[in-house]
């Protein structure tokens, strides 16, 4: 979908004023998370679900309530459609929300999505009334399939989760954007501000990032950097950039140069 900086981001009929979605993973403390939420002015954050005896009462819910952000639970850690669907249903109960960031992982080391299980899970969840935002590869055909089965957005990766490698294949992202009828949210791979700017310039409607902020040396400074970077990218996309040229294009006219003799 075309990005207009001025217009809000709309997913499944809900408007968001920020084009930055914050993953809550990796923050050294809840205080820092809360500061990052405030600094980014994000409308939506992701959370995961884990067994209560491993997690303990975390205080996370209280932070989410205090900041008033929209909660987007995920299915992180699921390797099959079945586990992802069950986890989505737990999340629906836990937060009384149909929204789910669907992750179905195919490989432990790269945490890359499994295309086949992902489509299967997406179909089931859509049929069950969920608003499905799937974490996917940068495969344009897969993104289209996910839209076709009824996903409310597609969330292609730039590079593996937490790798900080940015957008490895901007061509694929551009192809996804070109064809998408739902919002395209870059998910995974952002390492620093310029990666986020580039995502928006390529036409992504929003960016989701966790580690780039939560694991930076100064998370709050990086939160502000990426907030500005996303705004910069959205504005630049809308502003109509100059074309790339192999040669120079003078910014000063050569006419009227003074001559000083030999």
């Amino acid at each position: 979908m075309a990005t207009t900086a001025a217009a809000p981001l709309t997913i499944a009929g809900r408007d968001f004023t920020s084009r930055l979605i914050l993953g809550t993973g990796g923050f050294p403390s809840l205080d820092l998370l809360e500061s990052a939420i405030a600094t980014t002015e994000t409308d939506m954050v992701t959370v995961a679900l884990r067994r209560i005896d491993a997690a303990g009462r975390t205080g996370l819910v209280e932070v989410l309530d205090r900041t008033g952000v929209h909660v987007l639970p995920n299915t992180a850690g699921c390797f099959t459609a079945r586990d992802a669907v069950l986890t989505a249903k737990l999340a629906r109960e836990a937060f009384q929300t149909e929204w789910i960031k669907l992750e179905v992982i195919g490989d432990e080391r790269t945490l890359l999505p499994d295309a086949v299980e992902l489509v299967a899970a997406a179909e089931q969840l859509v049929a069950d009334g969920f608003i499905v935002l799937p974490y996917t590869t940068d495969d344009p055909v897969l993104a289209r399939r996910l839209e076709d089965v009824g996903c409310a957005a597609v969330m292609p990766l730039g590079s593996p989760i937490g790798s900080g490698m940015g957008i490895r294949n901007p061509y694929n992202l551009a192809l996804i954007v070109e064809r998408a009828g739902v919002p395209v949210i870059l998910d995974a791979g952002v390492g620093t501000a310029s990666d986020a700017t580039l995502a928006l310039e390529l036409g992504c409607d929003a960016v989701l990032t966790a580690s780039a902020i939560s694991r930076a040396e100064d998370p709050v400074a990086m939160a502000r950097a990426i907030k500005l970077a996303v705004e910069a990218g959205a504005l630049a996309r809308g502003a109509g950039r100059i074309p790339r040229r192999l040669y120079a294009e003078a910014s000063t006219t050569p006419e009227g140069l003074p001559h000083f003799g030999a």
Partner: protein
Amino acid sequence: MTTISLNGEDRPLADGTTVAQLLETLDVPEKGRGVAVAVDAEVVPHSAWDATTLPDGARVEVVIAIQGG
């Protein structure tokens, strides 16, 4: 006497213990916000926590929101 599996570990319970009663023994946020329960791979909605008793041998998963994603 009932024994369930709670998040992978055996837990003895009085017969007829409900999901709600089980949760009282855990450190759950108010109104169970951010918490969900599955019994034998089926989600138990909040509205059914009071009415649902846990049978012997039930595999119970209680999950809570953590930072992630």
